């Protein structure tokens, strides 16, 4: 985190047309370094102020008692050590939202990855119209989560919702998907899988296309059936891509927020409230330090989970 230390070493921009001779400290290297810092500086300054700085400030803030009333004098707040973290761990609402976030992760990641892989494998076998299908299946990804959440909220209505009307054709009386404490969360996951699987589909398809045709043909010649080829060739060869997909998808589900904000407001009875939702709410109440501590626990969870996934999927060979 000591970008500042290196920054102090930057020097004044050199003249563009300095002759590449007559310097005792390798002039090309030197002018390269100067030019590099000139190019790097605008990004680094913005990045320090608006990203790296807040990441550290958030950590610092989580050890204080800062509230919205302290905004104008952030240095006047008291240091309270780990109190916020201790309070969080014994807060029943925080426990509830942590549990919910875990369910989002455990339902959402396998479903998203499996649908993406299924469509990617199918797309890889399609010879014509591949581009068309790929774009079509990818469409939900580019749309605003807020907007599609509004649409899905209407689709999932109890009376007059399109989904219940459709399953009604088969004689099934559909429930109020978003009004039930048990069904609301899986419904949000379903909508989220629909919104997100396209990204992984494109990545998996790119990965599938790097598998040499010869290996597949050799397996076919040896009498391996389609499932055997998928299980023993496609999956192992796709492992780096799958690992990457698992990491990115998990990070996404751990930050679940907008769907719940629009479709259920976190309800019914907090059953769809996520950690990010909790953090936003605490910020709204003015509990800045408490919100920061909750955000940091989420951050910690993301880092630990990423490291765990790398270990698990990488060392299996």
């Amino acid at each position: 985190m000591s970008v500042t230390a290196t920054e102090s070493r930057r020097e004044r921009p050199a003249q563009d047309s300095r002759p590449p001779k007559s310097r005792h400290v390798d002039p090309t290297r030197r002018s390269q370094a100067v030019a590099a810092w000139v190019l790097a500086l605008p990004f680094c300054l913005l990045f320090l102020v608006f990203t790296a700085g807040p990441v550290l400030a958030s950590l610092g803030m989580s050890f204080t008692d800062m509230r919205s009333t302290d905004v104008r004098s952030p240095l006047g707040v008291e240091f309270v050590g780990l109190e916020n973290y201790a309070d969080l761990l014994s807060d029943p609402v925080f426990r509830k939202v942590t549990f919910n976030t875990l369910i989002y992760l455990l339902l959402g990641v396998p479903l998203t990855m499996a649908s993406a892989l299924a469509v990617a494998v199918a797309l890889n076998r399609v010879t014509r119209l591949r581009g068309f299908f790929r774009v079509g299946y990818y469409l939900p990804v580019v749309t605003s989560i807020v907007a599609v959440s509004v649409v899905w909220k209407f689709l999932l209505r109890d009376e007059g919702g399109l989904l219940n009307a459709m399953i009604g054709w088969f004689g099934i009386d559909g429930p109020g998907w978003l009004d039930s404490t048990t069904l609301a969360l899986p419904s949000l996951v379903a909508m989220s899988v629909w919104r997100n699987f396209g990204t992984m589909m494109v990545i998996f398809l790119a990965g599938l296309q790097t598998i040499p045709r010869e290996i597949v043909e050799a397996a076919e010649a040896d009498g391996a059936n389609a499932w055997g080829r998928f299980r023993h060739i496609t999956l192992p060869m796709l492992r780096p891509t799958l690992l990457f997909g698992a990491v990115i998808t998990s990070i996404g589900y751990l930050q679940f927020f907008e769907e719940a904000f629009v479709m259920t407001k976190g309800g019914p009875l907090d059953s769809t409230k996520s950690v990010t939702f909790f953090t936003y709410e605490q910020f709204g109440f003015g509990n800045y330090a408490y919100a920061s501590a909750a955000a940091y626990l989420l951050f910690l969870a993301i880092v630990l989970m990423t490291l765990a996934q790398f270990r698990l999927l990488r060392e299996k060979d």
Partner: protein
Amino acid sequence: MTQTLQTPAPLGDEPATVGPRRRSDRGPSTPPWLYAVMAVGLFLVVIPFLWMVISSFKPEAEVRAVPPTWWPETVTTENYRQLFTKLDFPRYFLNSAIVAVAVAVGNMVFCSMLGYALAKLDFPGKRLVFAVVLGTLMVPGVVTFVPLFVLTTNIGLTNTLPGMILPFLAGPFGVFLMRQFVMSLPDELIQAARVDGAGELRIFFSIILPLCGPAVATLGVLTFLTSWNNFLWPLVVATSEDKYTLPVALALYAVGQNATKYGLLLAGSVVVVLPVLAVFLMLQRHIMQGIASTGIK
């Protein structure tokens, strides 16, 4: 991770000469039932969009009808008229557009500069800069928004458009994309220019940058889309209605006093979704390549 990030795999709809290992040219022919399955799947995936667009032209009573109708019995543009006259959607649209364009341009400029330095130049602190930028790829927005709000309040940028733009001008994703792209350019190009006596900055601006066109375009489109759909930070920083972006306005209407105006909300969703769908469909080839080669949206 590195493998996905460093091998831009050939994609399906490129000329057949591109990839030596494309299986579609030589693979077994596609069974017809697969096309049927793919078509049905695609229809299911786009149903929400179709229903959204169609229903936004229904009068309020028909949107709430039980059982729901598919085609409108009466076609009306009343929902859109209200959106643009009674509600301030032109303002939200403009805010969203200004923020998204500014963020896209900022990322195109700053990320290509740093991306080139990281890919081709030698300088003290290089490894550290790259590690720190890479490290923040994992940081969720929820971690930074509280201190950012304190910061913007203290420098007077809360409830302003610059307050929405500045935190996203320099994103780690763009650095990553540009670094990957520039690394694929031959070193000899730069060596030759140096021998000819061109200065380091000039090499970047007049030789490298023009070659980065496709990558910069991809980055521009992707950051535009991300910014257009961004929600948490604009929700936090826009405290008065005239600074709302489209997603913020739509979400707050959907959970607020307009929650029961279904037709209006659907028309609002169309206004949020349609421009990005149009941009995406026009430029989808760039976007798909960007995603496949970097692995990140």
